[in-house]
């Protein structure tokens, strides 16, 4: 790694700490920076500020940053895999699958009784939806010859789920539709330590898989055929990529709803700022940039029109799209 890359990592890490403090400090109740650190370090939960931080802001912002990490890495994996720069974590229909299942629960009322038993009904159903789409893709992945076919199948799955969802919307009650629409836009509000621990626990398992992916992922930069001649086990690699990327984006979607743009844009920001396509560097780089950006976006989502909270997807898109266009105008769009 070069000095430039090390200093970039350092800079993004400092930004991470700053954004973390900022997000904990500001909100409908402002808490000064100094006090924030005191409360966090001494685990002070008794005061009002203490309970706001420990019960609301800290789990929320940590969850948000983990979402940013997962979505960015999911997008990176799929961009390299499909050798296509405009691919994101939701391109394979993962979010559509999740949305369809959520629509079935929220709009059609299917399984609503279970919610008494399982407090995470929406999250579980969203995750099941993502998982189903992923399973179909994994099953098909060893059957289809070219990766492009797989990409198209993913897109078609998305359209199919979307079609069923829209039918459900037409027949649903008005009040329910608004709730469903807001869910679709994504939000980190109401996240507690429970959600955070589930997401980080599942994430650790996935991250272990990620360590073994860096090498074949780099070989894939030359295309599938070259990768094959260099000894990459294509079938296993396809399954691993689809599983890991879908699981990463599926977990996030399950708790926060689909978050647009992050997975597509962050890998580009990482590539252009670190000046490399080496996935050994891009995986950690996308992770830290993803965390930074999503925290910044959540900050604006909460504070811009406080006390009304904006959907996270709206902010990510408004902020990110122009940045990406700017970056890409300078250099060509690359994988």
């Amino acid at each position, binding site marked *: 790694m070069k000095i430039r890359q090390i200093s970039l990592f350092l800079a993004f890490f400092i930004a991470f700490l700053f954004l973390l403090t900022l997000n904990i400090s500001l909100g409908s109740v402002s808490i000064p920076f100094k006090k924030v650190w005191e409360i966090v370090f001494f685990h002070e939960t008794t005061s009002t500020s203490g309970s706001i931080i420990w019960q609301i802001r800290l789990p929320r912002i940590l969850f948000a940053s983990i979402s940013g990490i997962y979505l960015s890495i999911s997008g990176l994996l799929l961009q390299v895999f499909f*050798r296509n720069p405009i691919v994101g974590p939701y391109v394979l229909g993962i979010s559509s699958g999740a949305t369809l299942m959520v629509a079935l629960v929220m709009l059609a009322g299917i399984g609503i009784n279970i919610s008494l038993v399982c407090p995470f009904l929406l999250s579980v159903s969203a995750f099941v939806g993502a998982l189903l789409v992923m399973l179909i893709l994994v099953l098909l992945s060893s059957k289809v010859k070219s990766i492009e076919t797989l990409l198209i199948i993913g897109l078609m799955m998305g359209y199919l789920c979307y079609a069923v969802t829209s039918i459900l919307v037409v027949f649903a009650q008005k009040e329910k539709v608004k709730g469903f629409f807001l869910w679709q836009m994504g939000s980190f509000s109401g996240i507690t330590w429970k959600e955070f621990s589930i997401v980080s626990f599942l994430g650790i398992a996935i991250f272990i898989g990620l*360590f*073994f992916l*860096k*090498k074949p992922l*780099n*070989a894939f*930069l*030359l*295309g599938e*055929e*070259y990768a*094959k*001649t*260099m*000894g*990459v*086990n294509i079938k296993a690699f396809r399954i691993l990529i689809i599983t890991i990327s879908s699981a990463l984006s599926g977990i996030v979607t399950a708790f926060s709803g689909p978050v647009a743009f992050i997975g597509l844009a962050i890998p580009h920001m990482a*590539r252009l700022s670190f*000046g*490399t*396509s*080496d996935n*050994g560097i891009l995986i950690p780089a996308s992770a830290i940039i993803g965390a930074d950006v999503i925290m910044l976006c959540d900050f604006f989502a909460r504070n811009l029109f406080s006390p009304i909270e904006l959907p996270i997807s709206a902010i990510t898109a408004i902020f990110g799209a122009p940045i990406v266009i700017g970056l890409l105008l300078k250099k*060509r769009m*690359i*994988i």
Partner: protein
Amino acid sequence: MQKIIEIKNLSVGYGRKVVVSNINQQILRGQFIALIGPNGSGKTTILKTLSRLISPLAGSVYIDGKELINLSSNEIAKKMATVLTERPNPGLLKGYEFVSLGRYPYTDLFGRLSKEDKDKIYEALRLVHAEHLSNRYFGELSDGERQKLILARAIAQDPDVIFLDEPTLHLDLKSKMEILNILYMLSRKKGITIVSSIHDIDIALKISDTVWLIKDGRILDAGPPEKIIDEKRINELYGLKEVCFNSILCNIELRLSENGSGRPIFVIAGAGKGAPIYRAHIKRGYRIITGIVHENDIDYQIAKTLGLEIISEKPFSRIKEESIKKAIDYINKADFVIDSGFPIGSENMGNLMLIKYAIKAKKKLFSLRKKEELLKYMDNADGIIFEKVDLFDQNC
């Protein structure tokens, strides 16, 4: 030489469609094999099957005595590397990083490069003369520089065999020569077997130890090019009606569709002086008759490949009366006559008779030599248009 690959009753193709069948060949260590044949004859399919990118439809391939399908992908990657026609686009990778991907089969689970790996990468870069590209982005390089790195990546894989599909496609002359020289050096000095499809048949014949001629779903013939290639073979291979390849010169001449349909002209040639005149005038649509040239003359070979009408003489013999008469008949019919400036010696003195005849018959006669030189052999040179006129000028 030691045998490295053995191919038995191999059929290659996609799905149920057989492209080339019944291949039985041996490949020796350090051999340079060129696959030639028309577009769509199956060269790429053969290369992809040998490198196990696609499975054989029937038959088997043995490498070092072991059947290809029984080897693991990693074992195969250590034995053979492949350079495809499809040009990779690795994004923001630098030359060194690009070549280092070739170490894939040797590195650990995390892809870390050992000292040996790094040495091999630098050696590969040195072999293709691309050390200076190691710190530049792949995307910023020219086609020729990229191809060097692509080759270096294959070399870094430390293989016994490299399969290449059209390695010189889209390259300029200099890059082409560099790439071919590297391949030649790999086979001669490093003992790496090279199996490559090459579209330029003249180059293929000059560089390879063995050629495989591929056509109509089979290997037409295989062997040393000097032994199995002649004009007939090339015509058969590419389905040409007329000769445009010369196996002595290993040269290809362009047969233009309008050749020989225009006004007739007569070129008195010899010792290569005729060749540029043929080429300049054939483009302008003239029907060219040339003579009197000996069959061992370079002008004869070129004229033959261009498909001209030739009045010829047996090698090393004096020009005969009847040849002169035949030539005079043609001169009478020709629009004009060109004296190419051929060297005059005892065997081709007869050609001077043709010049003298043309003067006497008041034919329009161009000469590409000095007047004084001609006057040594004859009394007058009246009416001859000498070098002042540029025969190669389009306006002429």
